[in-house]
């Protein structure tokens, strides 16, 4: 059976050109980028080339890019590093209720060190109102961090307006662009943010390499102390191959992002429009317009996400869900709950995130196999029986 991969948000496949670019650095070009000999300098040059490419993807200068091992590390680095650098004067954080765990939990850790957090709410589309961010700002706000796009519901935030309010008040602003970078055009100067996280495996690069953009002059404390790698701000021997892969992926994304979006958007829109039509009691989650071009997400009433996911997997489709049962922590998606969905509905979450190369026929087949799966699961659901009998679940 043909496999159709609809889990972009967990990680995209790696482009063959990216693999090719990486291979020499796993084989003959094994030098440590900190070494002064020719092998080392070859690796160092490759790192700088990758830095240029990542910078170009987001309109930054190469000297403003710091490589990390993941998106989570970039977020931890931004939150903890920027907050702690300002802790003598400022001990207040502003984040949204739908941030990634790496932001939410970093804020929790900072609370243990004496910081206070304001969680800015979202509306039913998962959108943060910039006025709410403005209202949350205090004289002692150390940092604002609002994600550019959410991976569970696809909503894209009006970061530019928020960044303008932050700048007025002299508060640094970070944005987690992990789900967005390489998929929608980003210009850090246009956005006006001081820091931005991205990761390669969201745009056909390898896992294991991400980056934090840090505007020149922005203060940060290192998370990893040690040598002088990354200007002394992120110690540890660099994963040259992964970083080269990230650079190559950024270069490709810059050129091809528009055509990816052009191909995926109509397919995404078909899913968003047709699924709720062919299956009763299905709602599309996230914002109808302000959303990632590859992203369609839903809540299917009366059934649970993991069982849907397993059935879809058996039919050849790789998908993901924000249900409690799918998460190892057995918690329903904080994103869906923050958007005002009740627990039962949030349990029926299913995310279909497309990758380059998905065909219209793949979507046809998905629309064909999905309704019987839902029907089957609903037949055994006590909530559905209650619904049919007119009892309130």
């Amino acid at each position, binding site marked *: 059976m043909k496999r159709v991969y609809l889990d972009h948000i967990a990680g995209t496949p790696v482009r063959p050109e990216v693999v090719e670019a990486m291979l020499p650095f796993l084989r003959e070009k094994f030098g440590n980028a900190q070494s002064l000999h020719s092998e080392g300098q070859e690796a160092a040059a490759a790192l700088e080339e990758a830095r240029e490419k990542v910078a170009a993807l987001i309109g930054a200068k190469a000297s403003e890019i710091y490589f990390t091992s993941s998106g989570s590390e970039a977020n931890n680095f931004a939150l903890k590093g920027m907050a702690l650098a300002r802790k003598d004067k400022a001990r207040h954080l502003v984040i949204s209720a739908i941030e990634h765990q790496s932001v939410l939990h970093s804020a929790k850790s900072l609370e243990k060190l004496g910081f206070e957090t304001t969680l800015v709410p979202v509306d039913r589309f998962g959108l943060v109102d910039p006025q709410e961010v403005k209202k949350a700002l205090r004289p002692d706000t150390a940092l604002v961090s609002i994600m550019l796009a959410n991976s569970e519901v696809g909503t894209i935030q009006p970061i530019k307006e928020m960044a303008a309010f932050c700048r007025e008040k002299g508060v640094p602003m970070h944005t987690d662009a992990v789900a967005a970078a390489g998929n929608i055009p980003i210009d850090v100067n246009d956005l006006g943010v001081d820091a931005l996280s991205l990761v390669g495996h969201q745009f056909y690069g390898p896992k294991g390499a991400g980056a934090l953009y840090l505007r020149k002059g922005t203060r940060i404390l290192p998370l990893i102390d040690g040598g002088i790698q990354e200007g002394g701000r992120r110690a540890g021997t660099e994963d040259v191959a992964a970083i080269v892969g990230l650079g190559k992926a950024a270069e490709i994304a810059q050129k091809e992002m528009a055509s990816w979006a052009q191909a995926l958007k109509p397919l995404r829109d078909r899913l968003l429009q047709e699924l709720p039509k062919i299956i009763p009691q299905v709602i599309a989650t996230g914002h109808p317009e302000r959303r990632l071009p590859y992203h369609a997400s839903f809540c299917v009433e009366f059934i649970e996400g993991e069982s849907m996911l397993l059935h879809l997997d058996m039919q050849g489709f790789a998908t993901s869900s924000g249900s*409690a*049962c799918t998460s190892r*922590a*057995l918690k*329903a998606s904080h994103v869906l709950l923050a958007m005002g969905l009740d627990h039962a509905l949030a*349990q029926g979450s299913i995310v279909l995130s497309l990758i380059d190369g998905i065909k219209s026929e793949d979507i046809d087949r998905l629309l064909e196999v999905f309704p019987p799966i839902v029907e089957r699961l609903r037949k055994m659901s006590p909530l559905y029986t209650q619904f049919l009998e007119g009892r309130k679940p």
Partner: protein
Amino acid sequence: MIYSEKVMEHFQNPRNVGTIKDADGIGEVGNPVCGDMMTFYIKVKDNRLIDVKFQTFGCGAAIAVSSMVSELAIGKTLEEALQITNDMIAEELGGLPKNKLHCSNLGADALHAAIMDYKKKQAAAAKPKEAEKVEAEEKKEEACCCPYCDGPIEGLENYCTQCEVELVECPHCGHYTKKGEAACVNCGASLES
């Protein structure tokens, strides 16, 4: 795959799905907050389970557990069926992932709840005093375990080591719920103080 072949087999072809219109006992456990809900229907004749049906809202493990419980229970006497434990269910299914073990507890609980419901109805029909006794027995059974996995709760810590969650006691009914939840998973009372 995170599940054993046996779990996947039961998940794909669950046995005894459905309801029993004139059930002798109905057991309903769980709620959407913790992720799973199971309703068991039983038919009893001469102290034996002659039919068991279920409906489940939940993950793959919850569906497979329900199916296995129904299979294990049919034909057993009520006493034998009450001896069905979560360990037995998990073992019969070729094991469950650690964070899904609570599903097997839920399955055993739902079956036992259906049997208790039957006993209560029987007792009520016989004489009202007996019914009170059954109710007391039921209360005892519900005491002081993690609602998600049935594991023991560490003293004053209110922490379940098995599913690694912090719990809070509901001021209204005394049941435990995951810390941070807005409402008690048992009685629905608000936990926001």
